[in-house]
């Protein structure tokens, strides 16, 4: 089904939002797309112009290639429950280059898409955490391999979509592969490191083990569309959590690229669900959602952070804020990975068992 065939939504608030937030620079020719708001700290802006007024609605890559062949354009979809979907609302956002030319569209997730993603994550959680640690580690290792395998594509995409230099893009991609690899190794180790046998004074065998907390909502970093995303997803899922990731950043299309990588790494559907869209639109529905167990947030503004903390009390969600490094080099540094990034998303279980004949 194409976007234009999609039935009109009855959701009046969404319509209102669309109208209000529609860029004045958008054409009034019935194009359903809207402009993405300017996102996050302008980390790479020193070497780049800020987006200026669009000069034309054609895709910059829409021409012909070096052989004169007309290209087949890729549609960027979201990954929910193991399927690549458009929004049920049929809305998209636009990604523009430094000159303001349209690079591509990507999906603007609705609150119902979020609801569906949480449902998919919940359905997948029991099965994912029941898999052996070895099996989960094999899947994460595979994901690292697949990032590596798509290295050139990802570098090109980061140049086009995130306006990175080739060196920056390589750092981002290699960092993402290495980070996934590093966390993959934790999958069958963190329990051994974090568990304890507790020397209680009575004749009981008493031990404490970590277990995944459940479904985690992740608000993705704004300035590192691939490495930052991997840095947040990997420590959450390796223990057996499933997640719903809301991506609003300099290049949300990279989240889609990552989802295509994860989808070919043997992840069961629903373990990772990636939504592109507007954090302000989706966050309220996520933080009030009663079937989300924890929230991981990176970046965001003061109001967004405060609203997460306030709303979390309704179902006593665990909240963890990741500090957003302010440079790509900082993201790639080893201090941006830690065993203790797994910990906010686990529960501790202590069991008592008698000892006696």
């Amino acid at each position, binding site marked *: 089904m194409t976007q234009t065939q999609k039935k009109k939504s009855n959701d009046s608030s969404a319509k209102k939002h669309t109208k209000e937030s529609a860029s004045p620079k958008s054409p009034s020719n019935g194009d359903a797309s809207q402009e993405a708001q300017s996102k996050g700290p302008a980390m790479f802006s020193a070497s780049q112009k800020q987006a200026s007024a669009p000069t034309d609605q054609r895709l910059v890559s829409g021409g012909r290639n070096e052989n004169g062949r007309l290209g087949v354009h890729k549609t960027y979809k979201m990954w929910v429950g193991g399927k690549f979907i458009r929004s049920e609302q049929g809305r998209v956002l636009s990604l523009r280059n430094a000159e303001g030319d349209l690079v591509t569209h990507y999906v603007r997730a609705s609150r119902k898409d979020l609801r569906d993603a949480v449902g998919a994550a919940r359905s997948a959680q029991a099965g994912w955490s029941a898999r052996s640690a070895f099996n989960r*580690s094999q899947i994460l290792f595979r994901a690292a391999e697949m990032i590596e395998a798509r290295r050139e594509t990802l570098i090109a995409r980061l140049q086009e979509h995130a306006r990175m230099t080739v060196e920056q893009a390589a750092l981002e991609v290699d960092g993402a592969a290495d980070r996934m690899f590093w966390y*993959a190794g*934790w*999958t*069958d*180790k963190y329990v051994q490191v974090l568990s304890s046998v507790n020397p209680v004074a009575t004749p009981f*065998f008493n031990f404490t083990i970590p277990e995944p907390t459940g479904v985690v909502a992740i608000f993705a970093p704004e300035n590192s569309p691939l490495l930052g995303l991997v840095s947040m997803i990997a420590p959450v899922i390796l223990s057996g959590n499933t997640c719903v990731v809301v991506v609003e950043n300099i290049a949300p299309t990279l989240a889609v690229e990552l989802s295509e990588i994860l989808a070919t790494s043997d992840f069961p559907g629903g373990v990772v669900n990636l939504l592109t869209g507007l954090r302000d639109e989706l966050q309220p529905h996520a933080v009030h959602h009663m079937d989300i167990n924890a929230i991981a947030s990176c970046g965001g503004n003061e109001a967004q952070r405060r609203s997460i903390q306030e709303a979390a009390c309704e179902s006593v969600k665990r909240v963890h804020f990741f500090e957003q490094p302010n440079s790509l080099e900082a993201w790639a540094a080893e201090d941006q990975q830690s065993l203790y990034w797994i910990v906010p998303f686990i529960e501790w279980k202590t069991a008592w068992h008698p000892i006696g*004949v």
Partner: protein
Amino acid sequence: MTTKTQEEKASTRDMAGLLFGDLWDYAPAPESTEHVRYAQRYGHFINGQFVDGKDYFPTINPATEEVIAEFAAADEAEVDRAVQAARNAYDGVWSKMKPAERAKYIYRIGRLIQEKARELSILETMDGGKPIRESRDVDVPLVAAHFLYYAGWADKLQYAFPGARVSSLGVAGQVIPWNFPLLMAAWKVAPALAAGNTVVLKPAETTPLTAMKLAEICQEADLPPGVVNIVNGAGRTGAAIVNHPQIDKVAFTGSTDVGKIIQRAIAGTHKRLTLELGGKGANIIFEDAAIDQAVEGIIQGIFFNQGHVCCAGSRLLVQESVVDEVVQKLRIRMESLRVGDPLDKNTDIGAINSRAQLEKIHELVQSGVDEGAKLYQSSCSLPERGFFYRPSVFTEVAQSHRIAQEEIFGPVLSVLTFRTPEEAMKKANNTPYGLSAGIWSDKGSKLFSVAGAIRAGVVWGNTYNQFDPASPFGGYKESGFGREGGLHGLKPYLEVR
């Protein structure tokens, strides 16, 4: 065997009324050896290269007694070359490499083993005699898992010993046995490399083939030359490694006798040592156990890998109230064990690893008969060629019998009885060994209580012979010291301050 043995071998029909015959028999299902590749002659693997040796000895297929290939026996000079290569690789490359890169090399080895799993399984079975079902489903998957597991540790060492400073030791000399040739190589090499050491490894002289494939894999993984060196040979070669002054760490798996020699040999040197030696594992069946599953565990405990397992459950301790039922069901179960061609996918028990080992089993079984224990052997037929032995059970065994004291290292089980948990624990501990034990009971508190009382490094509750790279393995008492597996398996390869 003696005629007395034949008399003991009552037909199954008489025994339980069940008939395990050939109404529907399994046709031979041999694994094809067509696509396995190996050389006719191997020297050593030193500094990333296969090098020729001087004196060659054959390795045979114990199921056919045919020669597979020839291997060189390294002398002191060749061992010295290997140690120097390891030393140079340690000083020049491996100890300076970023841990994350060491991790990737070890990971590559793990992945390559997964890719070559079938070939490795077949070669392991050809060279060692173990059934293809086990090399395919147990040995080789565990080998890959072991490398993948320790790959993940290489760049996380600071988490293994919080608050301590860790550093690698240098060159590890490693000597491994013939019962799990490639798996023991993995248990030795993977943690050593992860901790930042380089190695000189010596496989057993009867099973050197898959170690040479591991050497090929190291080449394919582009592992820097000298990080892994493999020298072939027997005791003299092993002694040369152990005694080489530039070895910083010795790791040995094998018999307690040789372990003691090694411990004495390195006395007064700076060398660190871990030993994984013999065992005489007690497998304790309480009357409240799930009997059918316990019988399965007994089978798994003693007949896995023809009983060539240091942690084998070779002493069965059964509570008197259920001993008849347990022994009867054990004998029934033994009738469906298939002994024969190790390459046949339906074989449960393959070939005894060597003629010498077969003779040792014969000798010990004869001692059991002579000392008055009652022998039962399954009625299966044995192949005419090769080294094979029937699954065997001794009942009416006394704690003083040699078959209750000595490690037989074959498919021979000794059944003893007990009346109380206290007695079971005492009997289980009444041995200089302390590697493993099994406890079968439906009562959790009893499992923990007995497990706590047993002086053994691995205690299995309601299971037996389980292995996992995440789980430490090793012995108490004369079964050795040090652990392999888990984060505990890193410690013997690290200086932890």
